[in-house]
């Protein structure tokens, strides 16, 4: 009778341990190839950097996630460049020199990408302009007919 709670507690703990093991497995599955990082900060830096770089084989994957052979080679390359004391920007430039700006998920802001970076803003402004013009026109035209009756208003609401 007295050992029942203890047993239950044990079972809970066992379940917890199992669950932990399960998630640990998921964690290790993330690291596709083990690299000898010196410390956790270095690994975090590596992960952040490779997440900003595109795999050229599976072009919708980043270097951190891709299983492609080339991605593995490039991860190793990035790791070695980190070991030799290169900064993130230097490593990015190293890859851009070989594979063009395409390896960067964020294209650099330069004249050829102005439309890409600021195009959406232009479209937004144009849309806002259209809305402002439409509202002004409608408020101007709907003010006098308001006294005429509802029929004029209905027509304005068509679209």
């Amino acid at each position, binding site marked *: 009778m007295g050992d029942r709670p203890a047993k239950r507690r044990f079972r809970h703990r066992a379940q917890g341990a199992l669950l932990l093991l399960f998630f640990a497995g998921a964690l290790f599955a993330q690291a596709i190839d083990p690299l000898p990082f010196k410390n956790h900060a270095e690994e975090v830096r590596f992960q952040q950097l490779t997440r900003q770089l595109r795999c*050229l*084989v599976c072009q919708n994957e980043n270097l951190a996630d891709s299983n492609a052979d080339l991605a593995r*080679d490039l991860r190793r*390359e990035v790791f070695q460049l980190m070991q030799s004391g290169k900064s993130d920007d230097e490593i990015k430039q190293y890859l851009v020199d*070989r*594979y063009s700006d395409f390896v960067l998920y964020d294209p650099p802001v330069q004249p050829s990408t102005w439309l890409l970076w600021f195009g959406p803003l232009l479209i937004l402004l144009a849309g806002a302009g259209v809305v402002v013009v439409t509202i002004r026109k409608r408020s101007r035209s709907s003010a006098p007919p308001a006294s005429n009756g509802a029929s004029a208003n209905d027509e304005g609401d068509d*679209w």
Partner: protein
Amino acid sequence: MSRLVPFFGFMLLVVLFGFGIWWNTQHDQREVPSPLINKPAPAYVLPKLDDPAQTVSRESMLGKPYLINVFASWCIACGEEHPVLMIEGQNIGVPLVGYNYKDEPDDAKAWLARHGNPYGLIIADRDGRTAIDFGVYGAPESFLVDAKGVIRYKRIGPLTPAVIEKELKPAIAALAKETP
């Protein structure tokens, strides 16, 4: 008149969409233009496939234009390209240098024995380290290197008879005009 505005907006989108479709039939989305065109080829020192004791380098190849063709026995598209190289390799006017990419030497030799060897010289890059300097991201790829060691043209994907006629041969002809 203002009722037509949404219609014109819609037509604008249709035209944009149609242009997008047309553009993608003309261009390979996967193709990433190399930043190395008209730049010196990266310095490389690689062993020969049939005699690893001997190495070939960028410096040792200076003086004459040549075409580097990246291939591997595991690469399916290389198998498609191979018969074209067997026929056209002799006619392009520059030596064809095989670049065996991330391959087991024995596999590569067996593959060449089975399908034929169009290359005058084959260099081997087993770990693919030098290929990163060349910006190789998928075999087959081909690089036209001029007499000064500058990359003048790059083909990503198999060389086909059409590509050889329309792109490679004109590029080689342009080289021939430069060198007196």
